[in-house]
Structures are given as structure tokens and as C-alpha cells.
């Protein structure tokens, strides 16, 4: 087999790249390899699959005929096990190989499973793919009543919500002192925990699971303080680490993830990477970091795709940005939300009942934000953060009740509204300056 473009990975990053390539090059062979069986689907929707709010059909990220429409060779259920960059080949599990000219490693992340005794038992799951959701769904038929979710991060909370909706009693075990500790601050965590408690979820913080015990069926998890928590299902959701084994095999530079430059190119000029596997530029930290979120994967993939097709595009940088709505509470967060030990940051915040807003500034530039309850104008703040706008002259307005573009200085909102180039229509005779 031979292809001009080879994309390994069939999620947000791979599809972003494929769409960009097809904008630039409709002709040459483009191949996408997936180790899953499905056309591209939205990974974040697996919790809605488990609750039966979504079927696979509704989870599809692109229409079912996406590959045919875009003249893409799609190879599902295939796993690449070896790369030979000098020969530009990728080898499959069965020994067959494919020759490529430009390669994208959009391989994503793999759930971290700590070496807890009993982790291989039946009834212990991770929760990142549709197959995971299907496996949990099937296991629930055994009459599961109590579940333990290890990890109070995004995936853990999303799994918890789905299990609660399925009528299961859930306990979350979080190693740190609060849930969602990597993406929101203490106050917002407190609000999220309150919403969880309202749904009768029990949260145990500051502890880890030492052992998962049982015989044929699961019986309990045992914590590091020897407390025993009965359960018949365990979800391990402590995080995801970049899948770097192919990059390692190819001799490409890896730090925590596959290191990419502003073109999303790796240390090998014809190999690109993006998404959860890659360590790309973070505009808040001003250095390469892992930012494993869906939008960054898509945008990074898109940039990679253009460059693979010979169009010079630079990655604008991404940062951790999340919009959460679990248990009826809306939370938007981005960048640095919990202050490092430093005097260089300024915080503006406001709390009013179920509404909490916070903006973190450094030298009058926004480096972090949290919006709880009222998130509708958070995009304007995130935009100012992404565009690196000095907000010194209007920072106090950022949390105004009726905040909007009009609170920005005239020059800024004028830029955003733009001047009409030519007028096709105004509703009277003419429109003059």
C-alpha cells in the first residue's frame, strides 16, 4: 500500500488534519488508520451512550459518508506497530506495511491504570472510548448497585454522572483534597462537590485505592487507610497519558508527549503530531505543554494538515479550556485557575449565590478564568486571553453583571465589529458615512 498522507488516529486531531488536507489537496491519496471499529465519533459523548441518551448514530462527529465524500481511505480495526521513518513506512500488526510521504501521529492518549492489586478483575473499567462505555453498559446488566470511581477529574465526574443516571450509587475516591483540582480552583470545586452531593454522590478525598478485592465478582475497594468500600463496579479515571510508543519507535523527540513545533511538525520533518499525544505550544504558559482537550486536538490537527499539504500555517497555541455541565451546574474554565506560589498574579473574583466568576491576571494580561453558573459571556474573556490583550484599563469591568463587548475600549470593540466593506443592502435608500 502507498499513500501520500497517512493519519494514524481517527478522532478530533486526525479529522481536523484530514479536512485541512482536503481543502488544499483533493487529489492525492489520504489514508486514516484507526484501531477502533467505528467511523469518527465524539469521545466526550460516551457518557451519554452509557445513559442511553445517545446511540452511536447520534455520536458521529461527521456524517457516516464522510470518508467517501472526502475520498479518504479509511482503515478501521488496524493497528500500526512499527514505523521506519528512513523508508517512510508504517507496519501493521500482521506485518503488512504502508508507504507514506507525510505522516500524522494523532494517536491520542491512553488511560493511566496504577498498579493497584486486583485491577485486572472483572468489573474494573477505564472510561475513554466507546468500547469502554459498551463494556460498562453490558456489565450493568449484572445488576450493579454500587460503583466506585477512582479519580475526581473530568472523566471521573462524567462517568459518575452517567452511572448516577443509571440508578447506581457512586462513591468517588480522589487522591487530592478536592475534585476537578487540575482545572478549577477551590471555590469552584466546592460548588461542584455541592452539586455532586445533591445527587447523593459520596466523595472521599485525600485517599487512594490500595486494592480492589473480590472473588468471581467484585466485593470492595480498600483504601490506603484500610477503609473498605463495598462495590460491584470500579471505574479507573485518574488521567490519560500520551501514546508515545510509535514516536519512540521512530526515534522522534519526546518529552511528556510528542514534541511539536509551531507547524505541528515533530523532530522529523515529515512526521507531524497533534492532540492528546502531542506536546504543543500553550499560549498561557508560553511553552510546550500537554493540553489534552478536544478543541486543541482539532485545531492542532488542522494546522498539521495544512502544513502536510504544503500550506504554511502556524498553530496559534492552545491552553486547557473546558466547559463542564454535570449535575446541572455550568462551569467554564481556562488557563491558570489555581494560583502558583507567586506574587505576580492578580485575581478579580465575584460570588453571588450560585454564580462565581474569577479572572486571573499577570501584568494586566488574562492568564486564567473560571465562570460558574453564568458562562454566556465567558467567551469574550477567553478571547481576550487568547488574543493577549492588555486589559489593564478595563479589568474591573470583566466581571460586570451585564458584561459584553461594549465594556471593552472603543478600539477593541470596533476591531471586533469591523467596518462594512461594501453594502449589499441597508433598509433605506442609502447608507453614508
Amino acid at each position, binding site marked *: 500500500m502507498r499513500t501520500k498522507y497517512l493519519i494514524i488516529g481517527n478522532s478530533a486531531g486526525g479529522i481536523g488534519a484530514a479536512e485541512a488536507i482536503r481543502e488544499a489537496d483533493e487529489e492525492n491519496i489520504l489514508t486514516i488508520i484507526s484501531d477502533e471499529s467505528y467511523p469518527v465519533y465524539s469521545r466526550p459523548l460516551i457518557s451519554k451512550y452509557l445513559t442511553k441518551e445517545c446511540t452511536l448514530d447520534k455520536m458521529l462527529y461527521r456524517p457516516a459518508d464522510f470518508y467517501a465524500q472526502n475520498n479518504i481511505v479509511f482503515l478501521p480495526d488496524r493497528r500500526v506497530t512499527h514505523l521506519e521513518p528512513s523508508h517512510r513506512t508504517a507496519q501493521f500488526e500482521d506485518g503488512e506495511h504502508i508507504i507514506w510521504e507525510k505522516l500524522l501521529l494523532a494517536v491520542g492518549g491512553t488511560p493511566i491504570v496504577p498498579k493497584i492489586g486486583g485491577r485486572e478483575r472483572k468489573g474494573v473499567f477505564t472510561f475513554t472510548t466507546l468500547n469502554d462505555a459498551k463494556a460498562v453498559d453490558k456489565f450493568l446488566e449484572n445488576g450493579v448497585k454500587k460503583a466506585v470511581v477512582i479519580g475526581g477529574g473530568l472523566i471521573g465526574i462524567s462517568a459518575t454522572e452517567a452511572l448516577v443516571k443509571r440508578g447506581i450509587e457512586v462513591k468517588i475516591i480522589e487522591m487530592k483534597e478536592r475534585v476537578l483540582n487540575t482545572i478549577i480552583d477551590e471555590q469552584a470545586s466546592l460548588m461542584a462537590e455541592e452539586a455532586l452531593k445533591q445527587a447523593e454522590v459520596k466523595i472521599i478525598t485525600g485517599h487512594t485505592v490500595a486494592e480492589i478485592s473480590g472473588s468471581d465478582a467484585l466485593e470492595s475497594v480498600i483504601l490506603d487507610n484500610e477503609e473498605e468500600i463495598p462495590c460491584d463496579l470500579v471505574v479507573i479515571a485518574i488521567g490519560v497519558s500520551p501514546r508515545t510508543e510509535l514516536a519512540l519507535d521512530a526515534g522522534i523527540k519526546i518529552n511528556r508527549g510528542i514534541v511539536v513545533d509551531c507547524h505541528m511538525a515533530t523532530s522529523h520533518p515529515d512526521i507531524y503530531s497533534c492532540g492528546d499525544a502531542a506536546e504543543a505550544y500553550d499560549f498561557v504558559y508560553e511553552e510546550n505543554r500537554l493540553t489534552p482537550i478536544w478543541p486543541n486536538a482539532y485545531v492542532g490537527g488542522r494546522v498539521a494538515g495544512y502544513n502536510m499539504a504544503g500550506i504554511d500555517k502556524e498553530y496559534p497555541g492552545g491552553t486547557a479550556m473546558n466547559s463542564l455541565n454535570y449535575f446541572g451546574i455550568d462551569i*467554564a474554565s481556562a488557563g491558570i485557575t489555581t494560583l502558583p506560589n507567586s506574587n505576580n498574579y492578580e485575581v478579580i473574583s465575584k460570588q453571588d449565590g450560585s454564580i462565581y466568576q474569577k479572572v486571573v491576571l499577570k501584568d494586566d494580561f488574562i492568564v486564567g478564568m473560571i465562570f460558574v453558573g453564568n*458562562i454566556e459571556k465567558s*467567551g469574550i474573556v477567553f*478571547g481576550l486571553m487568547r488574543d493577549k490583550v492588555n486589559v489593564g484599563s478595563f479589568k474591573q469591568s470583566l466581571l460586570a453583571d451585564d458584561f459584553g*463587548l461594549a465594556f471593552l475600549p472603543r478600539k477593541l470593540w470596533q476591531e471586533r465589529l*469591523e467596518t462594512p466593506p461594501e453594502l*449589499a443592502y*441597508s433598509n433605506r435608500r442609502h*447608507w453614508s458615512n
Partner: protein
Amino acid sequence: MKRIYVKEEACIGCGLCQVYCQTEHSQSKDIIKAFKKESPRPLPRVWVEARENVSFAIQCRQCSEPWCVYSCLTGAMHNDPVSGLITVDAERCIGCWTCIVACPYGALTKDTSNNTVVKCDLCPGRDIPACVANCPNEALVLSEDGEKG
């Protein structure tokens, strides 16, 4: 490529654009019925921002680099390659609001009645969007330019 621009100097913040937008997006398309009878009341896709002596209407900018589309977790947001119109497929929107956090204009809004996002659709079926057609000060204009900004 169509988009709506606002002439800020002519916008007095009367809010009629909102009213006509709501009416246009109602079941009945009748102003009285839309506001008095329909439940839930249709949401506007345009808002008037006002502060001190400044006011202007704002709706989706139909960006050529649409952060909302790039950020959409489900593929519900779509950039039509021919018309350049940014659309949302309510069937596939799950109300995660990632697009809202991504939009630098604050031009998207939550429809909590069905948990989907709503945005300016340039009034399909009308030559001139309702907000433009009904602005008493001709502060809103429809422009058809080749380039997307």
C-alpha cells in the same frame, strides 16, 4: 458570503432588532403571538449591547476561522463551505457550551428549553434578515462580500 454589520453611530439601542429576531424565530411569526402566547418565548439571536452613550447590536460574525466550529465536541457546529454560513444542528448539539466559551464575541446563547445553543442563521427564507429589515435607523446592514473576515 453574507454577514451583518452594525453602524454603531446610528444604533440607539432601541432593541427592535431583538424583537424582530425573536418574532422571525417564533412558531407563529406574529409579533403579538410570539411574545404573548408562545412558550417558551423564542430567543433572540442578536443582542443590543449598551453602555453609557455607546450601543450596538451584535450577532454571529460568521467567522472564516470559526472557533465555535473548531471547538464543537459533537460536530453540531458546521461551517458551510459554499455559503460560509456557520450553522448548528440542534439534533446533534448536546448543550455542552464549549462553543460559548470559544466565541470571542459572546454571540451564542443557551436555549435551556431544549439544551442546545442558538445563533444567528441570517434568517433562512428571507432575502434580508429580520433585524436588518426592521432597524428604524438603518444601523444594521447586510453585506455580501467575497472575503470572510
